[in-house]
């Protein structure tokens, strides 16, 4: 048994001295009572690695076999999703921006904050603070204590972190997608409720199918994302057709830092239709 560190009566050793003494004792204990890495620990590691590789191969196989078949190609939705979706098309009219699952928690965080006052908290504020705390952990928690029951604050903090990550990931995974095919069915209701003029209808159709509702809500349709504003009454602000077109062409040129994608590729004609629709949207009449 290692001896307790020598010290003078009444003088507590500093935390660092205590830590050093303990680590020296650790090294001695391992030398005396430890077991060699090979074959003991190495055996466990090898078994675990085989499990890992098998799980990966298994997932790859499920992905393939449930999405592949004689009647469809890799875009078929299998158990683990399609092997690929349609080719990228910057000029498309409908898309669902979705990251890989381990970014869902960030993705969902963005729905909690609203543009422009606090969306910054969701995109950078909260993640940066969490990352700094993660880096700083060993310097925040400097006690020697390692037993869980004696680390109540650490245990509660860990439980809360895991819970919030799980909830955010789950919410992100199940977040309702605004499917163009469903949104388009609402266009007649919009026309009626907002008394949209005839020349605004093509724009409304475009709005429903061009992916706008992936971020914006309109009369309750669509999903709010990245803190994008509700557009039910955007027309009451009388921003003007020209402004709308300029904003759609390059949102970040007009609103610095806007995360809304550029829609320049829709073409002048369709952008004008969209702008007419937006300007005609004066809210429920």
């Amino acid at each position, binding site marked *: 048994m290692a001896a307790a560190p020598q010290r003078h009566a009444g003088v507590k050793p500093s935390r660092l001295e205590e830590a050093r003494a303990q680590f020296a004792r650790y090294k001695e204990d391992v030398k005396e009572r430890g077991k060699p890495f*090979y074959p003991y620990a190495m055996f466990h590691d090898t078994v675990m690695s085989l499990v890992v590789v098998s799980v990966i191969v298994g997932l790859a196989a499920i992905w393939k076999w449930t999405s592949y078949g004689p009647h469809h190609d890799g875009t078929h939705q299998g158990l683990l999703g399609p092997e690929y979706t349609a080719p990228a*098309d910057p000029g498309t009219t409908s898309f669902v921006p979705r990251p*890989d699952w381990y970014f869902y928690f960030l993705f969902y965080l963005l729905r909690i904050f609203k543009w422009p006052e606090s969306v910054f908290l969701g*995109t950078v504020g909260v993640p940066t603070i969490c990352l700094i705390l993660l880096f700083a952990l060993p310097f925040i928690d400097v006690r020697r204590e390692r037993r869980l029951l004696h680390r109540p604050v650490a245990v509660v903090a860990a439980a809360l972190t895991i819970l919030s990550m799980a909830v955010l990931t789950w919410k992100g995974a199940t977040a309702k997608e605004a499917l163009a095919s469903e949104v388009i069915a609402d266009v007649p209701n919009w026309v009626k409720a907002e008394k949209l003029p005839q020349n605004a209808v093509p724009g409304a159709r475009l709005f429903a199918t061009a992916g706008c509702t992936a971020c914006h809500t309109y009369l309750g349709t669509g999903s709010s994302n990245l803190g994008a504003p509700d557009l039910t009454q955007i027309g009451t602000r009388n921003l003007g057709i020209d402004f709308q077109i300029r904003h759609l062409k390059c949102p970040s040129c007009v609103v610095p830092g806007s995360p809304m994608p550029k829609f320049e590729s829709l073409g002048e004609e369709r952008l004008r239709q969209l702008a007419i629709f937006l300007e005609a949207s004066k809210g429920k009449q």
Partner: protein
Amino acid sequence: MAYRRPPTKAQLRRQRMEALVNYPLDWLEERSGLVGGVRYFLFRKVPGDVNWMQTLGSAALTAFIVQAVTGVILAMYYKPTPNEAYRSIQNITDHVTLGWLVRGMHRWGASVFIILMFLHMGRVFLFGAYKYPRELNWIVGVLILVLGMMEGFTGYLLPWDQTAYWATVVGINLNGTAPFLGPFIAQFLRAGQEIGADTLTRFYSLHMMLIPGGIIALIGLHLYLVVRLGVTSPPWSKEAAGMALADEEPQPLRPGLTRPVPRGIAAARPEAGGSK
């Protein structure tokens, strides 16, 4: 006992065989010391009470190796241009022999790798294994975690399908909202005004050279520190290495009230109810 028989023919042959087998190893050892290094790594002592949770680190390493190997194979067939990327992915998935397996393993291995990193980090937290003298290794670990997530982000664009493209458009725009550096990061990632050919090659280069290079270097440092400092015993273990004295004396709930003030290291420990 006193009389030593001369070795038999069989014994002589065996001695010669052993020398022959050992020759390459001896040659290597004499010129590099590598054999000694490997022997040190393999036969170093670990605490007698290490448990299954402590295999999560090497499990993450295995997942990373799977990513590296499958990634190299994918790079033999993948073409990082907007015109060809999608078709080359289709080709790998549908036509190349076992291409679906390699791509599937790379795709899902990424998720497994991320999960294992988080589980490993959770075990380190649970064990309080980030405390002195292992603070630096925790920081190295967090860096690896961040780089691992960046691998996920850059790799997602490469199939150049709708999901990939639009998730990246939004991802880059989000980076752009960060104060001060944001616009520069977005500009750097996009490699221009629009997401296009240059973005794709840039993401490809980051994904297969820069970030993995960083991860490999950091894993090397991580493992060096693990071997140098040793791994921590489970905190609940009765024979936890380095905890000998603390465990001999029961920890009183309120020192001095119901039990005598403890001696030894338990006395030096900050008292109950401390933070963290």
